[in-house]
């Protein structure tokens, strides 16, 4: 029975999907690179904390950085070797900034350790969770959310496996499904058991018939429902997939998990199965290497930390043809400026583009308000109005048009006939609003602090006043009492109430001065006597 699809608005059908050159070859293992660079931050959340020292020998699979408290993921040594450095190194990120990494000089021997096979039946659920957490698995579809953090037990209605892989060029999941469907399904079962999922949906786009066949075979007579969805970008975006499969929208500002919907990418399921069945932490992944500038496009099983340069060389890159290297797909991917940067857990694809393959210097023109972007937007935003508002600095207006709900899929920028880099504007707008919100929060805090201080001072003043008043009352009472006593016993002897205050003061002063003078004399006279 076919699952009823609800579809989602917008979306695009990029021409030349370019999946074929890479997807036709079987997954190939990359030889061990001489050194590996492992960023501490390969996931969303806090960077991991190193637990090794420079010079220390490590073994394949050994923990080298533990997960930080909160949302984070551990990092393991992908191969035997020696820690060569802990410090900043180029990483594949948008900003081109260097990040904290651990370097390993690999050594050839002992690389082929036998996998330790563990029967997952013997593990309790708690142990499984533990092991998944320990394995440092993160969402391999691109978001990099630590896997174990989504394994909340309660109320999981739907477990959705995302095999849409909707960006052009990328084929690592496709290839993984063709070759390792049973392991993927095993991983799904583990996740389903831990989540106690009521319903498991496996969503795959209809442009991967071979993968579909393998998956359907592996899912035969299981409770996994394989759902074939039409090929359209961004079908694999989390919110759009939920909408397409279930006909519901994740409310703005919420996660699908709050609706009891948990989503994992196929690669993640595979990693989970490796972690449970082979005790293998996440130390390698499949990377699509493609583009006109490589001779042997394909999908490579690559150790995390392998320098991108090394991988490209292995795929036969023509440096004179090479125009740009993009990590990820051509629509959402990021340009890699430093090829010494390593493959991370999130590197699903590397495009080494040749001349004319990707856009080169298409200067933006004026927006002609054609509305193509409006039709392409899967979030039903008005991209050209957002663009306009951000461009003119009217950030609030953009905010009112729900800039925050832009998933940065880039569908709008893809179709824009004026080639306006719309997503850049949205990122800029978002960061601006974010900064302003921070400032507002800070100002709010400051105000609260100020008000609290004012209140405290006020209170203290009142208390002081009260104390004074009490003291004054007490004094008054005492004075009255003593006066009463005085009038009873002796008349005012020394007091000269009629004399002006200043004179009384002067009298007292002259008395004191006289006393001081006496004392001085007394002191100097004996001296003088002694000297003389």
């Amino acid at each position: 029975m076919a699952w009823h699809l609800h579809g989602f608005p917008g979306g695009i059908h990029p021409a030349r999907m370019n999946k074929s050159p890479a997807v036709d070859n079987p997954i190939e293992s990359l030889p061990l690179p001489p050194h590996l660079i492992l960023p501490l931050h390969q996931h969303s959340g806090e960077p991991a904390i190193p637990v090794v020292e420079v010079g220390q020998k490590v073994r394949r699979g050994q923990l080298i950085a533990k997960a930080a408290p909160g949302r984070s993921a551990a990092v393991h040594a992908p191969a035997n070797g020696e820690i060569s450095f802990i410090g900043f190194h180029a990483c594949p990120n948008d900003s081109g900034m260097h990040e904290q990494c651990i370097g390993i000089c690999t050594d050839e021997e002992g690389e082929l350790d036998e996998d330790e096979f563990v029967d997952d039946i013997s593990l309790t659920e708690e142990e499984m969770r533990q092991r998944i957490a320990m394995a440092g698995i993160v969402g391999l579809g691109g978001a990099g959310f630590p896997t174990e953090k989504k394994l909340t037990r309660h109320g999981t209605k739907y477990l959705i496996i995302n095999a849409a892989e909707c960006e052009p060029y990328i084929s690592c999941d496709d290839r993984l499904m063709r070759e390792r469907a049973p392991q993927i399904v095993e991983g799904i079962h583990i996740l389903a058991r831990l989540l106690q999922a009521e319903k498991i949906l496996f969503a795959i786009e209809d442009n991967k018939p071979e993968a579909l066949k393998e998956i359907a075979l592996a899912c035969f007579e299981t409770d996994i429902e394989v759902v074939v969805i039409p090929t359209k970008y961004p079908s694999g975006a989390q919110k759009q997939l939920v909408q397409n499969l279930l006909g519901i929208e994740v409310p703005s500002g919420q996660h699908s998990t709050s609706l009891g919907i948990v989503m994992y990418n196929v690669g993640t399921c595979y990693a989970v199965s490796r972690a449970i069945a082979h005790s293998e932490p996440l130390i390698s992944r499949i990377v699509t290497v493609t583009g006109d500038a490589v001779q042997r496009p394909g999908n490579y099983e690559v150790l995390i930390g392998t320098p991108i340069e090394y991988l490209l060389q292995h795929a036969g890159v023509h440096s004179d043809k090479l125009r740009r290297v993009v990590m990820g797909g051509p629509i959402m991917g990021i340009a890699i400026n430093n090829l010494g940067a390593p493959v991370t857990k999130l590197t699903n694809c590397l495009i080494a583009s040749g001349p004319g393959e990707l856009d080169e210097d298409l200067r933006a023109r004026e927006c002609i308000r054609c509305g193509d972007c409006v039709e392409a937007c899967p979030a039903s935003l008005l991209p050209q109005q957002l663009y306009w508002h951000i461009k003119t600095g009217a950030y609030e207006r953009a905010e009112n048009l729900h800039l925050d709900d832009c998933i940065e899929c880039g569908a709008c920028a893809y179709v824009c006939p004026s080639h306006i880099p719309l997503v850049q504007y949205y990122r800029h707008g978002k960061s601006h609003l974010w900064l302003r919100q921070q400032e507002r929060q800070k100002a709010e805090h400051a105000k609260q602090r100020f008000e609290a201080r004012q209140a405290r001072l006020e209170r203290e003043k009142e208390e002081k006043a009260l104390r004074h008043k009490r003291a004054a009352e007490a004094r008054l009472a005492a004075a009255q009492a003593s006066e009463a006593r005085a009038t009873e016993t002796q008349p005012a002897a020394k007091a000269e109430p009629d004399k002006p205050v200043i004179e009384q003061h002067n009298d007292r002063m002259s008395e004191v001065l006289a006393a001081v003078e006496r004392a001085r004399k007394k002191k100097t006279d004996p001296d003088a006597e002694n000297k003389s």
Partner: protein
Amino acid sequence: MTMVVSSPHRTRGDRVARLMLLVIGCTAPGMATLMSFFGWGVMFQVWLAIGAALATEALCLSARGRSPKRELKDFTAVLTGVLLGLAIPPYAPWWIIVTGTAFAIIFGKHLYGGLGMNPFNPAMVGYVFLLITFPTQMTSWTPPLSLSDAPPGLLDSIAVIFTGETMDDRSLNALRMGVDGFTMATPLDALKVDLNQGLMISEVQQHPVYGAFAGAGWEWVNVAFLFGGFILIQQKAITWAIPGGVLTGIFASSLLFNIWNPDAYASPLFHLFSGGTMMAAFFIATDPVSASTTPKGRWYYGLGIGVLIYLIRTFGGYPDAVAFAVLLMNIAAPTIDLYTTPVVYGHKQEH
């Protein structure tokens, strides 16, 4: 390596020029039909308009410190020229189309900041300017060649446009003479005059200028523009929303009045295939810059133009109402946008 750091790294490409060329190309069937019914004048007007548009655009761009070499290639000015050239009477004097086009480009486009910034459809700004400034020349349509007393040839056409007289010294007014010896008007014009004289639709329609169902020549011109419009939709250069709205607006309002009093109000068929209806629906109202931009808004925008075309044609002072209808709805577009903002993903429950 060229480093364009930002995504997307691949787009559908630089399409403004292609889009404009496609639209210009799709006016070809309409233009050819117009020429076959009204003679060479059509072509000369379009050429003059294109020349004037390019020259004015180049001047404006240079004056604004932009590169005419680069920006002229987007063909937007050419399109403005083509549309205006097709809209004016084929034998109007040359300076009409030149001033009109220059006005359109300067006042309709560049004074607002150029491409993408103009709130009004430049071609229609030019048209209304001409209509108000030179009403006589702008309403001096010659009859279709078949109904003409003396259809102008190629050289005559050039002569009339540039000198006001044909080679054998006939004036434009002489050209406007029909076979029946009366000065011809367009079907829309004639309808208005005849109805004002108390004739009934059925009587009015006996007149040869009405053709088979919507005006001699005009019916086929409209069919041809409709055909070009379908190609535009098929090529995804435009969506059906605006043209669909325009045609629905004209159809619904004319049907309403026609049913109410068929003697005094022409049929929907007449209105759909008369004057500039199809050209307006597919080529003028769809100018993206000055139209509404939300999916629903475009439909309402088109609908508004359709209804206004009908109302102005029927009750207004000008026979063809396309330009006024389009400009009026241009004014309304931002408001329409405001009230038709789609519900953003994840915000369903607010409504």
